[in-house]
């Protein structure tokens, strides 16, 4: 039998070849066709129920696709049993072994690989330390808090240093500090060992920060695959634009257009101009035609009084003011539209509901979605 476990050095790109999965009549995912490169950190992103877990489970071998094939490298693994795949997986529901202690849970995969007692002990302890659970080895799983259980699940998957790491919301129950640390740790491991990592998260910031590439899904269908910057700055469609980070999506008509600049009228009070090249792939802007403009809230600035009346500077009324610590978020009414904006908390004065606020929208932040 091939020793899959001595994986170091093996290139493992994961290819989903037109994969679909139906549950009876319910669509799990449909026609996913993507290749995840060896050693890549790849993220599945999408709203709840869009098929992330389903896809992950097919890669792990717990579901067989209804149609399509899955390859690891050249090998067709569509029907290969999970234990032959040399994967490590963190399950969304942890799937810990209730009858084993924390230590035994983490040690499980190493025992399967017939490591020596000594090695197991060392590795498990290192892994537990990594997730800040040193000293918890002898606890029963039901004596742990939710987050602690999640960390055990994580340690259990990481300790075996698999060739492919499948992480299904592995940090969802951890606090920001711990997430941060664990993220760094996962990333480090991934780079060090060249592990191909597939990551599911509901946290876009996390996805942005960690991923080499991101696949955005919706209702089982892939919307866009690309680097974080591509996805954030050049979304394929409205869904991606609004799903990844906040976005003001405004519909308007192209009023003027030259080689570089496009001017769009959104409403009588609101005209925005932006660079022509800032358009989603395939979007053809034409004078007089409808277009949708996307503006990130954080790109909006408070305008100084001197800017009043300049291009892309508008005045409105604050309808919601929300303090988040790092920033203050406003909803500002301009005509019939509500513009979201986010100002970083730098000790500026905080506008309250009802106050007037003048905002400026930089031209380079106006993006045309067609």
């Amino acid at each position, binding site marked *: 039998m091939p020793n899959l476990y001595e994986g170091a050095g093996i290139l493992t790109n994961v290819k989903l070849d037109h994969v679909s999965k139906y549950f009876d009549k319910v669509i799990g995912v449909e026609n996913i066709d993507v290749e995840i490169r060896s050693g890549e950190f790849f993220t599945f992103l999408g709203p709840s129920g869009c098929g992330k877990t389903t896809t992950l489970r097919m890669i792990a071998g717990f579901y067989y696709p209804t149609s399509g094939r899955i390859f690891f490298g050249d090998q*067709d693994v569509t029907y290969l049993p999970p234990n032959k*795949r040399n994967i490590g997986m963190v399950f969304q529901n942890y799937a810990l072994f209730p009858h084993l202690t924390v230590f035994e849970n983490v040690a499980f995969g190493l025992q*399967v690989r017939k490591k020596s007692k000594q090695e197991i002990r060392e590795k498990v302890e290192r892994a537990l330390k990594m997730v800040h659970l040193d000293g918890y080895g002898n606890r029963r799983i*039901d004596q742990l808090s*939710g987050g602690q259980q999640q960390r055990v699940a994580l340690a259990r998957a990481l300790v075996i240093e698999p060739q492919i790491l499948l992480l299904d919301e592995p940090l969802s129950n951890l606090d920001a500090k711990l997430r941060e640390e664990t993220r760094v740790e996962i990333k480090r491991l991934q780079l060090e060992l060249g592990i191909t990592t597939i990551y599911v998260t509901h946290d876009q910031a996390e996805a942005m920060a960690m991923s080499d590439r991101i696949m955005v899904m919706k209702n089982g269908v892939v919307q866009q695959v690309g680097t974080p910057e591509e996805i954030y700055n050049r979304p394929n469609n409205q869904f991606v634009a609004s799903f990844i980070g906040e976005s003001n999506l405004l519909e308007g008509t192209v009023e003027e257009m030259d080689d570089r600049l496009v001017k769009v009228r959104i409403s009588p009070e609101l005209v925005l101009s932006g660079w022509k090249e800032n358009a989603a792939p395939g979007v053809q802007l034409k004078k007089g035609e409808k277009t949708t403009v996307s503006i990130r809230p954080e790109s909006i600035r408070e305008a100084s009084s001197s800017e009043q009346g300049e291009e892309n500077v508008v005045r409105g009324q604050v309808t919601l003011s929300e303090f988040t610590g790092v920033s203050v978020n406003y909803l500002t009414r301009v005509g019939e539209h509500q513009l979201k904006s986010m100002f970083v908390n730098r000790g500026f004065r905080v506008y309250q509901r009802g106050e007037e606020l003048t905002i400026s929208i930089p031209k380079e932040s106006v993006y045309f979605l067609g």
Partner: protein
Amino acid sequence: MYSTSNHSWTPSAMKRKTSITSSPYFVYVLVSPLFLVLLAYVIYPLFQTFIESAQIDGTFSLQNYLEFFSLKNTSNLEALWTSIYISILSVITCGIVGVGMAFLLERYEFPGRKILSVLVMVPMSLPPLIGVLSFEFLYGKSGIIPRAFQAWLGLNEVPFALSGITGVLVVHTFTMYTYFYMTASAAIKGLDPSLEEAAASLGASRFYIWRRVILPMLTPAMVASSLLVFMISMASYTAPLIFGVERTMTMQIYLSRTNGDLDMAATQSTILSIVSILFLLIMRWYQNIRNYQNMSKGISVHRTEVKSKVGKYVAMILSLIGVMILLLPILVLVLLSFSVDGSWTVEVLPTEYTLNHYIELFTDSRTWRPIANSFEMSMIATIGNILFGVAAAYAAVRLKFKGKTLLDVLIMIPWALPGTVVGINLIAAFSEPSVFSLNQVLVGTFWIIPLAYFVRHLPLVFRSTSAVLLQMDRSAEEAARSLGASWWYSFRRVVFPMAFSGILVGALLAFVQGIGEFVASILIYTSETVPISVEIFQRMYAFEFGTACAYGVLQILLILIVLFISQKVSGNNNITV
């Protein structure tokens, strides 16, 4: 790809492996041995029975069935109705007592709980032959309790006595509530405690929680035990006989056979199995409507809180009373084993006591042979049951394949048939060499009895294991696979320990049943393999009633030890105070 690795395998080697195990038909490869064995030991004899019933003078005819259902002589129909009626009532009473005891003993911690939770299983160790008699001694017209009341109230006649359907139900409840008790205990242990908490947080009272959450969640366990109880009640013989309910299916079969009406007997057996199968199908349908698998994220905390003091003592007293009542017939056996044969006549309690029965037993060098035989044969059968029953349960619950229902039916049938019929089928099947017996004549050898126990008690392990598997979150197994564990490794390290409570329950039931088995044993035992039940029968047959009782007490003691050890092994540590 993979060229950088330095090992010698090639993708094609992998492919070959893959093509077998990954094929959608692989599961059939897995389950076909199960079917094969069942075919040999169940279908084949049963089919012969059916052929016998549907053949008159070598031609196909449903004459026997017409006769069975004819309105001219309704005794068959009456018997069918009585059997069904008794069986359903038995399921209900056993369910109430069994689940009630499981609730008290699993959910409350009080001094002596551990002892009680062993004692509560003892009734299943009651030796069938003398066991039923002890009810007579206890509640019959001349029984201790009616006579005690008579003496106490100064009446001329006993105020009450157990007879008829009530009597049957009492005996059935007593001997079979353990199915419910044990499967329900295992299920309660495996129940996600956070479900109760969720219900309570939504405002549900204890009672409401039981009705809407716990009992429904126990469905797999209840279905399992209901099936076991229903079927064995259908096949029950002695209890109805003793309490004068003579118009039952088993009695009809017996009579047909003594009359030499073999084809009618076959017809009746077939109908009996059909009723049981129908019940099985209904229960399966009911069970499949819903999902019982634990869905919570992570592992829930077991509640460590002690309930109110009052509740604690009420629970203690209730379970104490329960256990006392359940132990009474056994205590009567003990009493009888110490009383002089024939001396106990009109008195409430025996008047003359003696150690002679025990002296007789312990001075006879052959006393231990039957005991050793029974333990050995039952142990072998139980090991087989565990191997086969757990595998079958796993296949039935976890694998996807066509013919699941069939598998289920096949496994359950031997339990649904009267023991005599099973014994006779086995004799018929194995008195000549056949493929299924590896070309051996099994009749007259040691192996025929373990085989009978195996076939007959397989449903116990199968049922109780599938009940826990249905409850168990399957993602733990997936986790094991994802960590590289082969199917077998993850089965061994994850599925088996997680399902252990259920498997143990089944194994214990099977083992104890094996030790007590009589009806089939008497037909197939050899002089080398006299089981304890046959030995007791022989003592009774020779009118050594006291010695028979002493023997029975010995058997109970040994079973008690087994139960106690198993209790220790299973480590009853889910409730900590």
